[in-house]
């Protein structure tokens, strides 16, 4: 925890006075530029973006749809990129609400994403000195994703591989032009798309290609503990317990050597190590030791929902159905925004079905509670009522 303390500090620093930080340097270099203010706050990026973003983090996707409809109806969106940003939120909200056909129609209204009308240089008066595509990358991603969500898996996967091609060519292009910040961003997108592809292969139990893709990522130097953990999970999933142990050991070595832990904080990495240890105990049917590891995680971070959920399952395998139910119910009560996810609810309902004769009533009570607190995109079929 000692080393943790500087980070909240610096964070608050950043949040409190980003302007002083930037303007200080601006004065020396581009202080005369009239566009300085365009990155001062979220609302500088697009019309009332801050409130859109706020609604999204609260899971109020219906409200987002309303807000967008209103903004469009009242012609509040002035600049070309405002329309695209709003459209991104709109499509995302529709996909979140499982209204795929509408999402698709919205996307189709854009026609060709590579058209010149979506490039900054086509509007020199609005975007002086700026070039390139103003299409938010999420639109390309949603375009590839929607077929999969609509059950056309092969089409979606083809689109994902096309997207990967596109991203990789962008990386090359930016490298040639020495646009360092862009290169970094597009490389991040490349990793993101590969991870999406792995996830979709994984859903279809195509483990061989998943392992190869992860292996490629690791050999390209993207060896952060979160990714290696996932390699371990897949190995464990297919039954390669020894392989999984090797992967988990490598993470522990990385931690010992003090190597970069990627995007994970110190607490997160410690919990990751404990959770991985717990999994090894779990596949060895040593549920008691697994529970101990999970408890260590929960002690460190009481909103570690993976540890909470998995601990509850271990208790059930220890024939302690009553306590396993309690663990999940307590978590939902204590940290609803983190614990309320579909998997936890599916597990809790399975437990109810086994434990109670009147499980339909109990599940209905749970369902009512979910309806009150859950975000709009919550899949209520997880209670199986």
């Amino acid at each position, binding site marked *: 925890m000692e080393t943790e303390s500087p980070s909240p500090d610096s964070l608050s620093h950043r949040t409190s006075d980003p302007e002083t930080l930037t303007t200080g340097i601006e004065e020396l270099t581009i202080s005369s530029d009239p566009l300085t203010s365009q990155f001062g706050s979220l609302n500088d990026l697009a019309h009332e973006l801050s409130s859109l973003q706020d609604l999204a983090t609260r*899971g109020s996707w219906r409200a987002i749809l309303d807000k967008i409809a209103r903004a469009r109806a009242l012609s509040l969106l002035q600049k070309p990129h405002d329309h695209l940003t709003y459209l991104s939120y709109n499509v995302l909200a529709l996909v979140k609400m499982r209204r795929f056909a509408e999402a698709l129609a919205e996307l189709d209204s854009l026609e060709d994403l590579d058209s010149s009308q979506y490039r900054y240089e086509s509007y020199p008066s609005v975007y002086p000195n700026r070039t390139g595509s103003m299409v938010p990358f999420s639109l390309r991603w949603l375009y590839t994703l929607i077929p999969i969500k609509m059950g056309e898996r092969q089409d979606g996967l083809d689109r994902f591989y096309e997207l990967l091609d596109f991203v990789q060519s962008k990386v090359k292009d930016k490298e040639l032009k020495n646009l360092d910040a862009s290169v970094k961003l597009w490389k991040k997108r490349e990793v993101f798309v590969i991870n999406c592809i792995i996830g979709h292969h994984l859903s279809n139990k195509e483990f061989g290609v998943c392992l190869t893709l992860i292996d490629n990522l690791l050999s390209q130097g993207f060896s952060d503990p979160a990714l290696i953990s996932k390699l371990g999970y897949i190995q464990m999933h297919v039954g390669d317990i020894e392989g999984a142990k090797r992967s988990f050991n490598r993470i522990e070595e990385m931690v010992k050597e003090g190597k970069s832990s990627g995007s994970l904080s110190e607490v997160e990495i410690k919990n990751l190590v404990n959770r991985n240890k717990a999994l090894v105990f779990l596949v060895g049917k040593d549920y008691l030791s697994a529970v101990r590891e999970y408890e260590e995680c929960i002690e460190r971070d009481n909103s570690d929902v993976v540890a909470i959920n998995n601990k509850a399952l271990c208790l059930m395998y220890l*024939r302690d159905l009553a306590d396993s139910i309690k663990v999940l119910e307590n978590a939902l009560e204590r940290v609803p925004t983190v614990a309320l996810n579909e*998997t936890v609810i599916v597990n809790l309902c399975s437990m109810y079905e086994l434990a109670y004769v009147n499980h339909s009533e109990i599940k209905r009570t749970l369902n009512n509670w979910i309806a009150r607190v859950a975000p709009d995109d919550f899949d209520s079929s997880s209670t199986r009522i």
Partner: protein
Amino acid sequence: MHHLDGSGLHDLCKNRRSKKIIFNRNVCLHLLATVLTNEKDENPLYKLCLRYGKSTSGDLLSDSCIRRPTCRPFSIRLNSIAEFLRQAFYQLQPLPNSSLRFCVQQRTSKMSGAQGSHSLAFRVMRLCRPSFQVDPPLRLDPVDLVAGEDILDDPMAAYQLPRLLEAQLSDDSYSDLSYSSRFLLHDSSDAMGLTGLLVLPQAFGAIYLGETFCSYISVNNSSNFEVRDVIIKAEIQTERQRILLLDSSKSPVETIRAGGRYDFIVEHDVKELGAHTLVCTALYNDGDGERKYLPQFFKFMVANPLSVRTKVRVVKDSTFLEACIENHTKSNLFMDQVDFEPSPNWSALIINADEHLSEHKSTTREVFKPPVLVRSGGGIHNFLYQLKFSTHGHSSPLKVEGSNILGKLQITWRTNMGEPGRLQTQQILGSPITRKELELHVVEMPDVIRLERPFTLHMRLTTQIERELGPFEVWMSLNGSDEEKVVIVNGLQTMVIPRVEPYGSTDFHLNLIATKPGVQRIAGIKVFDTKEKKAYDHPLPDLEIYVDLE
């Protein structure tokens, strides 16, 4: 369908759309009769499934009923029909290829006619290992949403925007009170949707020979009174035997309070194919002090997970065994060990293909080795073993009394989360070992053989018979083969070799000459026993030599 008793029928009745079909008792009878004929075309359940767009009756009775949001509570009026069906059902065979989500037995109070109402009911869930939840999420990097994809080409944006986003949009900047984790990525690998969350088994699934059947059993007291002195038994019945898994008769459960439960977990290593029934019984005193007996049955089928085809080839003094393992299960099999256990006369060595993966990946290799995965539903993998016949003692007769047993394969595999399975094949037989009475071997031959220069083969004639043989004549036959003889005897065309002791041998030299360069074959050496007047046509396996020009 194995559980028309419990959730199956119950849920079928719960389904509003099928209710009118079930409601009629006569239709029920008809249903029962035809469901169990295994004739798809005549099966009203199957037709029902087709009508509602489900492929098999098993599906209809399991997942869709339970998950269908339009399901309504079970009508009490249907209980008698359910019970009738339930009782009759057990005397008949289940439908093949069906799967059940849970075999959770619904309450049976008020259901049982002969017994009167029951306070207790069993609820059962197959407890295979949990699985990882996989669901690629709708989470993204905020910069991909709020700005154009090439925005960072602009130097000012590249300078200011990341800072703004990190301060205002990174997932760290939100408190626990938001659902930002459902929307924003934390690590790029989160996009995979493999969070590490485990999910309980959602279906009964298939169970295979060599696996372990594990079940969570909960006895619920749904009455308003406590029950006492509960004796619980659980056993597995197969066509051949009954195996007791749990018996609390020596220490009965003293009491189960109203609304209370008594839970236990049973395990059974599956060693038989076909129909299995888990029988749970409870003997207890109910609220009125009446002694009651509650039996409940849960059926499941055990299938064969894999088939093993073997091929035996003999090459020189080695025997090669090729085993082809085919996966008949619905999941990929991770082959943990496929070991050949040779019978006492043999030794075995597994032969692996060379590691043909490139060396440049050696840094990741130490962490990641691609596993041997046999694809679900018909995937195959071949294993090759080299077997050697090991003789005990040097001079002992090479006589094998009729036995050509090579040994057997021990196969262990793992599936989801390391769930193990284990099978052993029957004894694998080799090609019958026929030892020849008489054999010729080449003991030594020159390193270099030159064209049209004589050379000598040092040969040994061995007999493997309990009597003396010989004397012999050895020559090389010139006829019988279409190809022109290239290697021929130089000098005396027929050699005479003296008698040989029982199980004895004698050495001799054969002078030969080659008439063409290149790879040539020495063939057609004949041995004739002059005393017994018996010819040995192929005492020496064909031999290839390389003939040099100069």
